[in-house]
């Protein structure tokens, strides 16, 4: 933490005698330190509002899990084992959508109304670093939210699918899902004009929520071929399938490597378009 201290910045006391030159010291601070300081500010604010943050991001997945996994099951509308199929999908959904919303919404507000982002854009670091910090921060929030879904799942469903030997894959897909969702929020938050953000959010979020193979295994859509094709374009499908395949290997699923590859592809695509959109908004 103390590594950001730089002697060059302390050099002048009176003001009349300018610092010999802060540059050497400032360069050594590097471009990463400002971005990390910005991340620290975001984590500081999140930590202070932790209960509100968790309520905000967990309410939707918890209700989905409760109604579709518990209530409908108790009423006898569901086949045996559906709750286990649902759980990995809900974790995926939590990771992906939490990250997406946590990038997109604050960006719209920042650029259009509060202008808070201006002080960050003037930090001595490349503008793209400020954008990448947004992705990292939203991903961290999404990771916390999806991790919280495991104890909540046990509490709601009584039992969740778990294979300790698949832990590495689970972590990989939660991280990739969070990063991809966060990156997807970047073009959404920067390319959409503020006056249209409400409508765009409604038009984007609901389809993403239901075409992401969260509530059904992708392979079972054989019987509904057109819908299966549609879902293949939703990055969330690969997070759901990757997690489901890791936790329930006996359920037919898209191979893990295909899921990982698809997510890396989406991540690259969203990051590239998102950075472009961010630079367009940040620089005139």
């Amino acid at each position: 933490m103390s590594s950001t201290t730089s002697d060059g910045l302390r050099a002048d006391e009176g003001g009349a005698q300018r610092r010999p030159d802060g540059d050497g010291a400032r360069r050594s601070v590097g471009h990463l330190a400002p971005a990390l300081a910005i991340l620290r500010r975001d984590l500081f604010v999140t930590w202070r509002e932790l209960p509100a943050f968790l309520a905000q991001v967990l309410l939707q997945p918890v209700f989905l899990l409760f109604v579709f996994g518990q209530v409908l099951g108790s009423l006898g509308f569901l086949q045996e084992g559906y709750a286990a199929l649902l759980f990995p999908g809900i974790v995926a959904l939590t990771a992906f959508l939490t990250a997406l919303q946590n990038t997109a919404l604050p960006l719209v507000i920042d650029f259009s109304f509060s202008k808070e982002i201006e002080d960050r854009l003037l930090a001595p670091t490349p503008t793209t670093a400020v954008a990448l910090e947004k992705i990292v921060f939203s991903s961290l929030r999404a990771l916390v939210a999806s991790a919280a879904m495991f104890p909540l799942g046990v509490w709601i469903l009584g039992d969740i699918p778990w294979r300790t030997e698949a832990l590495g894959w689970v972590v990989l897909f939660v991280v990739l899902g969070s990063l991809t969702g966060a990156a997807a929020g970047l073009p959404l938050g920067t390319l959409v004009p503020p006056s249209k953000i409400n409508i765009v959010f409604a038009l984007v979020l609901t389809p993403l929520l239901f075409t992401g193979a969260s509530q059904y295994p992708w392979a079972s859509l054989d019987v509904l071929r057109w819908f299966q094709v549609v879902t293949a374009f939703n990055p969330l499908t690969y997070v759901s399938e990757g997690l489901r395949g890791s936790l329930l290997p006996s359920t037919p699923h898209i191979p893990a490597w295909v899921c990982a590859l698809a997510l890396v592809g989406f991540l690259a695509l969203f990051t590239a378009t998102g950075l472009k959109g961010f630079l367009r908004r940040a620089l005139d």
Partner: protein
Amino acid sequence: MPAATMGRVTSTAPAVEVVDLVKRYPKRGSNAVDGVSFAVRRGEVFGLLGPNGAGKTTTVGVLTTRVRATSGRAVVAGADVAADPPAARARLAVVPQRPNLDQSLTARQNLLFHAAYHGVGKGERVRRADDLLERFGLGERADSKVDEVSGGQAQRLMIARALMHDPQVLFLDEPSTGLDPQARLFVWERVRDLRERGTTVLLTTHDMDEAQELCDRVGIVDHGRLLDLDTPAALVARHSDGGTVEVVVTPPEGVDDVAGAVRQALERVDGVRGTDEMPAERPAARVRATVAGDPAALLAPVAEAVASTGAVVTDVRLGRPDLEDVFISLTGRELR
């Protein structure tokens, strides 16, 4: 230590240098900034004066790395803003026209995190924050959320925040727009403090009083062009037709047309171009003389001329030309 001297800015190098700067927006017919060149000396308070939309804010946008120039060159404290924006950002600070404080943080936290973004060490940033909160009269507001502070306090807090990383050049965009007179005077005082401390200040304003009061030199900007640049006094001397001397006189006993007599006497004074009679309460008369150059210099001859008529001067008012006159002379329009 070659590393320490590399990129070092010698004291004779300008703090800000702008060469043939052009900013064209695709959808606009004319250039927002149209070939502007100027240099700001170290430690100087420099003003860009012009109406809204003249290109001042765009120019500052380029200098503060937020607007990409179409062509031309801009250097701040030795850093080329286009080639190395992070280096320029490390050496400059901006106080924007509209509040952009971090709403999730308190006043003190706004200062501390800003300094952290700029790599100021922990002990140092706490010390600076305390010092600046005190200097800017925000001590009692230190732990308030920023949405609880008044407009004037927010403006002061933004200036304090800008100073947290000890910038070499401070940009103030319309620093007193929207402030009440008291808050405005406070901001002006702080800018004078900064000059004494040797910080270079570049401010934009459409307020001629502000330019005249604060700036060592002023650049007059209109339609994206820099029309002239000099000290306020030199600009006024160059572009205005002098001023006015207005006298109120009481006539001696038995004189009917004191105004006519005084006008005749004044028109014989060297430097007086003409006279007018202004409305006044009888039996007093009010006469205004238009003069070349500084009206104060003609005070004695004018008093003498009035005395020669036997009338007694009861009031004198000098009309000095100001930057408003300069602007009208340069553009044919009023500033406001």
